């Protein structure tokens, strides 16, 4: 079971918060949400993983897909508030370098 909170802030940054498990089923929905954001003109996106209790390779795939389309539009995708369990998956795939985890949503685009 998963819910996605989606919000576009005053500074134009989109914040997507997956609440629950990011697996094969829910990754499809995340991919759609990220595509729609970029297509709608939101090119800077933070995915807040603070309420994501599980992540697998399909969830990673959706994040990489979002990252690529955001960058193609001149923006970027960043991840924030990664739990130790979810961090394990980034480390095992060496994606912790491509998608560096930020401490907070607010500071995710500070650099």
């Amino acid at each position, binding site marked *: 079971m998963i819910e996605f909170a989606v919000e576009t802030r005053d500074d134009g940054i989109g914040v997507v918060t997956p609440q629950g498990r990011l697996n*094969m089923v829910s990754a499809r929905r995340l991919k759609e949400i990220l595509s729609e954001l970029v297509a709608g003109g939101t090119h800077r996106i933070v995915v807040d993983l603070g309420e994501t209790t599980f992540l697998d*390779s399909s969830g990673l*795939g959706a994040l990489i897909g979002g990252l690529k389309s955001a960058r193609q539009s001149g923006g970027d995708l960043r991840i924030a508030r990664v739990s130790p369990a979810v961090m*394990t998956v980034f480390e095992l795939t060496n994606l912790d370098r491509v998608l560096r985890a930020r401490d907070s949503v607010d500071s995710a685009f500070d650099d």
Partner: protein
Amino acid sequence: MTDDQQPAADALVGRLELSAPATPEIMDLVHGMIEHLWTTHPDIGERDRARFEMSVIEILGNIVEHAYAAEETHPSTRRFQIALAATEDRLVARLADNGLPVGLDLSGAVMPDELAESGRGLALATAALDDLGYHRVGDRNLWDLLCLRGSSA
């Protein structure tokens, strides 16, 4: 690969076994089984939980997505079995399905390009587990997953 003659997951005391249609929707129920395992074994560490759950879900996801793709069976006849168990020193799972034989060299499972959007599942499970075994027995595929508790895998 370790092969230490321990009983498979479907022969262990306290095991949980599920048999169900091989559909994406079943994922949540398998997450629920794994959660039940944590409830009954509160002493299992967070890292062991994370790598075991992720590996089980990767292997099951592959069964749902790839084991039947080319086959002409009706979806309703596609079934899998999963057995999960925890002992003092290990977490084990056995997944079985009635899909096509898998022509894979598991030792060749490597991470794809950094910006690839798929193809990481088997490499991830292999990296996270202490052992991943595949056997074709009769008309079924058997996947045996092993996490040694507290290992550095």
